[in-house]
């Protein structure tokens, strides 16, 4: 009876808090006051979970065994939900400031105030997302302390000192964020100082994420900690483990990608709801910038992932095999599909831009057709599994589990080759778009058009040659020589061609780009890209966690709970999809709240902050 009353009270309190939070927001404008609403939602969810029947077995409070459990979803799944939501929001609040700061910097350098407005609009999203991230982090921490006391005790023994650093950085980041956001207008004539604050915000954000990364990577690749170390030395020794820096770099780039594509999705959603041509033009341009920054991060991301995987193999080959060749090997087929769709979606958006925004779009048709063919072929090779799902009869018919032709595409040499080719094609798409409305005026204009094409083609040919040669050399040569040379060639080509094109574009004549003409499907492509990135983050987080198999800290602290197993991919995908959907609901809410006119806007006149740019005033990029 008491439990029922408590549940009712929680439900009512949750609903009241949601309602009051929204009302307060509507009354006063939204600046980081999303916490009451989210707190209410949390209470509501807890109350709902208490009402629902248990299917996770008996609740337990067996602190003696090092674990506690809860009914319904079970402790592990609750931690999974909280951790993934926290990480996604964490990625958002780390990626968006980078995006905003770069936009602001471009605005200051180019003297175009529209970039500044764009940066401010996204920083407005940031304030709401920041408190949600902190709230989710607190929920995650409470869950971990409650459900996994022994594990948290072991982790605290090692990382006790880092908690002080984390808290200090968090305070610094909070102060910097508030100064950055609230001082935007005040420092409009002191942009150097404001940019410095933005830089500090990003530095603190990066430092926070690398502290958290040290905890996560220590779980996967713990190092021996000699006895007698001080707390600080112990923390540093544990943090400086083999996968720490590869993950730091991988997550930094991935956060830029997430920030870019989420901003693209935001622009896409606003584009769909735009009432006037000016609004459509504004959000079309914003979508282009988001997609561009997403792609910009996406190109080097596979290389960072390759480095991380190589370090995992170096640390423990068995873990590497579990990841790439063991029960998680099929996960990489899913990853290939997601990345393939992401590449296709991003390129598709560029191609739509070429077709609808530029003059003489017909001339690009043949190139686009070629790009589609290459991308689809690469996509096909990337998602070809190493061993086939086949019945006994089918296996006999093809002469084993490896298809005589397709089996060749299942190995790493082929995967590396096609991923590099997809990067080159995407870069070529971007290059085509970049130059679409410009006519070079330099004396060597013809060479400026031909040389990039030749360089990209040569790089592609080398990548293919190295990929084929990789079949005839020992794995060690393929991993340390050929793959590295493929990556080096592609990165080198990207940098060289970009510099070359930038120089050739100096003083170029520009024709009009028609912003706001994109079809509705372009907005959906932007949303699709964002979903692919979110799913990828969830999928690879599952891979990193599952590669530890039944260890909390690999080889050091064993998971002896009833959840010491990694679920099959179907079950894991259900969790990932559910969490992604919840994240989308949260983000939609934040987008909606951010789209409401604030008190200041009302005074200054409609659209002072989010006032759309007129089509004729829009910059080319």
């Amino acid at each position, binding site marked *: 009876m008491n439990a029922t009353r408590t549940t009712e009270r929680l439900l009512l309190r949750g609903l009241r808090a949601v309602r009051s939070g929204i009302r307060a927001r509507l009354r006063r404008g939204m600046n980081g006051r999303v916490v009451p609403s989210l707190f209410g939602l949390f209470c509501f969810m807890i109350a709902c979970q208490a009402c629902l029947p248990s299917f996770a077995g008996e609740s337990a409070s067996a602190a003696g065994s090092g674990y506690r459990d809860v009914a319904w979803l079970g402790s592990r799944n609750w931690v999974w939900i909280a951790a993934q939501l926290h990480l996604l929001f964490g990625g958002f609040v780390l990626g968006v400031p980078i995006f905003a700061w770069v936009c602001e910097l471009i605005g200051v350098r180019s003297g175009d105030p529209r970039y500044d407005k764009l940066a401010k609009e996204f920083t407005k999203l940031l304030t709401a997302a920041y408190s949600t991230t902190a709230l989710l982090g607190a929920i995650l921490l409470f869950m971990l302390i409650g459900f996994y006391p022994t594990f948290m005790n072991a982790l605290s023994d090692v990382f006790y000192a880092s908690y002080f650093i984390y808290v200090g950085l968090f305070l610094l980041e909070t102060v910097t964020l508030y100064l950055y956001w609230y001082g935007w207008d005040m420092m409009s004539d002191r942009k150097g100082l404001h940019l410095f604050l933005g830089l500090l915000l990003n530095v603190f954000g990066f430092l926070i994420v690398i502290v958290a990364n040290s905890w996560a990577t220590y779980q996967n690749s713990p190092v021996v900690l000699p006895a007698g170390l001080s707390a600080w030395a112990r923390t540093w020794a544990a943090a400086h483990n083999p996968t720490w820096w590869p993950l730091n770099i991988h997550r930094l780039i991935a956060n830029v990608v997430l920030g870019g594509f989420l901003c693209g999705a935001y622009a896409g*959603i606003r584009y*769909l*709801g735009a009432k006037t041509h000016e609004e459509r033009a504004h959000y079309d341009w914003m979508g282009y910038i988001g997609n561009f920054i997403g792609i910009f991060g996406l190109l080097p991301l596979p290389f960072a992932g390759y480095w991380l995987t190589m370090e995992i*193999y*170096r640390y*423990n*080959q*068995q873990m590497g*095999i*579990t990841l790439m*060749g*063991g*029960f998680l090997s*099929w996960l990489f*087929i*899913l990853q290939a*599909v*997601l990345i393939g769709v992401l590449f296709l979606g991003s390129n598709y958006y560029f191609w739509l831009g070429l077709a609808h925004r530029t003059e003489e779009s017909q001339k690009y048709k043949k190139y686009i057709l070629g790009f589609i063919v290459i991308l689809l072929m690469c996509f096909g090779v990337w998602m070809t599994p*190493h*061993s086939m*799902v086949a019945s006994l009869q089918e296996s006999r018919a093809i002469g*084993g589990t*490896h298809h005589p032709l397709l*089996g060749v595409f299942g190995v790493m040499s082929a995967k590396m080759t096609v991923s590099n080719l997809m990067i080159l094609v995407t870069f070529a798409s971007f290059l085509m778009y970049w130059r679409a409305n410009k006519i070079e005026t330099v004396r060597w204009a013809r060479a400026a058009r031909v040389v990039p094409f030749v360089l990209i083609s040569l790089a592609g040919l080398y990548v293919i040659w190295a990929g084929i040669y990789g079949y005839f*050399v*020992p*794995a*060690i*040569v393929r991993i340390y020589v050929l793959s590295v040379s493929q990556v080096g060639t592609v990165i080198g080509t990207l940098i060289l061609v970009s510099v070359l094109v930038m120089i050739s574009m100096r003083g170029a004549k520009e024709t009009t780009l028609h912003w706001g003409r994109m079809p509705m499907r372009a907005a*959906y492509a932007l*949303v*699709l890209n964002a*979903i692919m990135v979110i*799913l990828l983050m969830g999928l690879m987080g599952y891979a990193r966690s*599952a590669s530890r*198999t*039944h*260890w909390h800290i*690999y*080889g*050091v602290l064993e*998971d002896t709970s009833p959840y010491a*197993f*990694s*679920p*099959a*991919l*179907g*079950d*894991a*995908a*259900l969790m*990932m*999809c559910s969490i*992604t*959907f919840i994240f*989308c*609901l949260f983000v*939609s809410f934040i987008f*909606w709240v951010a789209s409401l006119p604030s008190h200041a806007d009302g005074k200054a006149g409609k659209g002072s902050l989010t006032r759309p740019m007129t089509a004729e005033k829009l910059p080319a990029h």
Partner: protein
Amino acid sequence: MKNYLKILVFVAVILWLFYYMASSIPQQASLPPVKEQLDPAQIKTKADLVNVGRKLFFGKGQCALCHTIGPSHGARAPNLEGVGAKLSREFIYESTTQPSKYIYMDYTASPPKPFPAQMPIINKPPVDLSGAELLAVIAFVQSLGGEVTVEPSELAAFLPPPVVKGDPDAGRLVFNKLECARCHQQLASILGKYTSKESLRAAVVRPAGVTAGAGGKEGKPPHFEFDRKLSVKDLDDLMAYLEGLQPATKPAATPAPPKGATGA
């Protein structure tokens, strides 16, 4: 709001497609390894030893993740077919416990470079085979074309030390309190007749079934059904005292792994 709903439906459809695809590929959960304790007492012959080693090779030891027995397309580590005839027992031991001690040269590179093994140390976490399990794996690898030189009797060195549950001093007090010595003057010779702890305990608590000597004056042992008359702790203490009086028959179980080679 209408656009938000459209987008949410679009997102839901994408997520459902992803879930459908993820559910359509082979499903395999990663379960924690079953905690199987190797019982050296159950291994009587070399064939038993090899069978246990094979099970470990393909199971807990995870050797088959990389090594194959016979040529295979997916091999990531040396093919072990016939290695029993080529490698000594000491070398196999060293290769599993110190994989990088003997450094091969990679002759495909020019000039040849050291080519250290990346194999995990199998008697350390996460694989963490025990000494007896390691011997069984060595026996299995030896059986691949060679002669098995590991003897089942060597596993005795890895038998767990006897667990003494009670307190012998407290047991002596129980012994005196029950006045056992009034009848059992030649205690050492009586105790020597019982070859195991279990039979001795049974003789104390149920002497009618397993008695090794004469009964009491009335032909019935006076400590009949001691399991009902004594507390569990008193009985454990008494047993600990009596076991201490038994003539020593078992050697101290000190794990002694096979000697490793000095390596290159």
